[in-house]
Every structure is written in structure tokens, then in C-alpha cells.
């Protein structure tokens, strides 16, 4: 009996993670029959049992949200998908070992840019994650990464930049020219793990100086 090759039923089973939102995704056959269904299991590395993910059994879509199930930062995880087509053929594939801490990418921060006459204030708002502490509180990125810092740049008419870098969440660029356009970029950086968010960009104009009018 020659085992039928069913590897084409299922490819690229992997986690996509951003700010600890951990989504399992996969690809089916290019022209996968509409009646192909997928079932998801997951497990904690070091434990014996595979657990079925409720809500992702015999589904036709090609993604499954495992954020809650993979929410312990000190654990590593595996997930696997079983695809079954209408003819009863099936294939199972597993992810690489998944570490939320190492794999998650960081989204741009949420920032309020406040223009004044000769300065621009930037307030970075905390980024909450789905991760909860033992007491049930939602953790922010700052709670999770001890070396997290913010890197701010103010671009001045394409000729030079003002830089700020630090853990605080309020910054003010001073000594600016009134009634002038500036572009600010703010990134979250986690140096130890080489993580850097794409920048939040704000385009602001300082207020006109009305002191002598």
C-alpha cells in the first residue's frame, strides 16, 4: 500500500504575532476544494497533551486566533493543523516552536502630538496587550519588556533632526520656530530582542506667535 502524498493539502502552518495577538495561519492547496476543512490543536512545550482549539474545528477559513491559549510568556508552544478534503484525504502539519516573547512584532505606539508656539509636546500612551498578570490586570508592553524605550525624532525641513530617547512617556521639543511645519516620528524599541516598531508619524505646525500683534 503506497501512502498517498497529501502534503499539498496544507502548507506554511505558522504563527503571526503582533503585540501578543497570536494568530495561527496556513495555506491550503492553490485550488483547494471548497469542502476542505481544517482542525486546530495546540500544546505547551514540555507537556504531553494536544488540546483542541474550540471554534477552530472543521473550519474552512485558514486562520485561528490562539491568543488566549498562548498567553503565558514563560511558556513555549506548538500548534498543528489537520486538513481533510472531501475525498477523505488528510494531512497534518505542525508549527515551529513558538515563543511569544521572541516572535511577537511591535505595533507603532499611540501618540498625541500637541503643537505650541515654540515647542511640540509628544505624549505616548501605554500599549495594552492581551497578556494578563496573575491578578488579572492587563499588562502593557512596558510591563513586559524591562528594556523598552521610546525613540523620538523631529525632522526639521529635511536638513536636521532633533532626537529624544528614553523610558518616560512625555517629551517636548523646544526652541522651535513659530508657525512652521514639522514631522515627528515615534518608535517603540526593545534593544535586547532587536525589536523596533514601525514609526507613528505626526505632521504638526507650531502656532503663530501673537505676542507682538
Amino acid at each position, binding site marked *: 500500500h503506497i501512502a498517498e502524498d497529501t502534503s499539498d493539502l496544507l502548507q506554511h502552518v505558522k504563527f503571526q504575532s503582533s503585540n501578543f495577538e497570536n494568530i495561527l495561519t496556513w495555506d491550503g492547496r492553490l485550488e483547494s476544494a471548497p469542502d476542505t476543512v481544517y482542525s486546530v490543536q495546540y*500544546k505547551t*512545550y514540555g*507537556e504531553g497533551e494536544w488540546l483542541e482549539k474550540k471554534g477552530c474545528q472543521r473550519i474552512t477559513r485558514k486562520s485561528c486566533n490562539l491568543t488566549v491559549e498562548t498567553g503565558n510568556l*514563560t511558556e513555549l508552544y506548538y500548534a498543528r493543523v489537520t486538513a481533510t478534503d472531501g475525498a477523505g484525504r488528510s494531512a497534518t502539519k505542525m508549527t515551529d*516552536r513558538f*515563543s511569544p*516573547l*521572541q516572535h511577537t512584532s511591535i505595533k507603532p505606539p499611540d501618540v498625541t502630538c500637541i503643537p505650541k508656539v515654540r515647542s511640540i509636546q509628544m505624549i505616548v500612551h501605554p500599549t495594552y496587550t492581551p497578556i494578563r498578570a496573575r491578578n488579572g490586570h492587563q499588562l502593557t508592553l512596558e510591563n513586559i519588556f524591562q528594556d523598552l524605550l521610546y525613540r523620538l525624532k523631529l525632522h526639521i525641513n529635511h536638513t536636521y533632526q532633533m532626537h529624544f530617547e528614553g523610558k518616560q512617556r512625555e517629551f517636548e521639543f523646544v526652541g522651535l520656530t513659530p508657525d512652521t511645519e514639522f514631522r515627528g516620528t515615534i518608535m517603540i524599541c526593545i534593544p*535586547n*530582542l532587536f525589536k523596533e516598531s514601525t514609526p507613528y508619524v505626526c505632521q504638526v505646525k507650531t502656532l503663530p506667535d501673537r505676542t507682538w500683534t
Partner: protein
Amino acid sequence: QEFQFGPCRVEGVVLQKLWQAFWAMKDIVQAQDNITSVRLLRKEVLHNVSETESCHLIHALLRFYVNTVFKLYHDKAAEFGVLKSFSALANNFFVIVSKLQASQEKMFSTHESARRRFLLFYRAFKQLDRESAVTKAFGEMDILLSWMEKFYQL
């Protein structure tokens, strides 16, 4: 930037370089470990380690990696074409062990609990056949690096 394991200080090792080296081979190495139901560096080994204990524990663990795991894994590293990453980790672990050695000799506190934790790891290692154990230990270096990161001061 340095490691501060309780009273033991280690300079001259850049944590990001260790992560960079490990990530360059992570998926290849971990894919060889198909015993997903066993974890050597379990919570009981690494959680709630006191400051003074941390120096003894990391010294025991890294010395084991340098003397045993790296030595036995070398041929596989050559086979998978990851010798450069292997060498980067081996030599940096060697630096840490050497510097911890010096600190250790000045420390008088008992390290019985650190020894118990190491033995948990070591017994789990011994329960597997040697090749599986070495592959698993090598693939768990990210667990070790994550733990070491708590003692890394910017």
C-alpha cells in the same frame, strides 16, 4: 551593559549578539527535537531564583553547556551549516563561565538550592538518549537566554 548575577558581574558580552547567533539557527535546531512533551529547563529549574543563587545556577548550567552540550553538538552544527552561530555562542558562554569562575571563588554562601535546581535539569537530560538530550538542550538555549536577560543591565 553587563550581566549582574547577584554578586557576580560579567562584562564584555553583548546579549543581542547571543540572540542574533541563536535566531540564525533556531528553526533548524529546534526542528530536530521532536520530543515536544519534554522540557529540560522547566519552571522548577529557573523560576523564583534568588540573586545569590543565580550566580551559582548560571555557572553550573553554562559550564555544562560549554563542557558537554556544545562539545557533543558540534558535528551537527557543522552538518546544518551553523558553525558560525555555534562558535559565537560557545565562545561567549566560555567568556561568561571564565568570569563567573573568578567571582565564584570569592563567594562563601552555600549554593545547595542552586545545585538542586541544576540536578533537576541534569536528571531530565540523563533520562533521554544522548543525541536527543543534546539536541534538546541546544534547542532550549532561548529559554536560557530569556532567563539570563533578567540579569542584564543596560
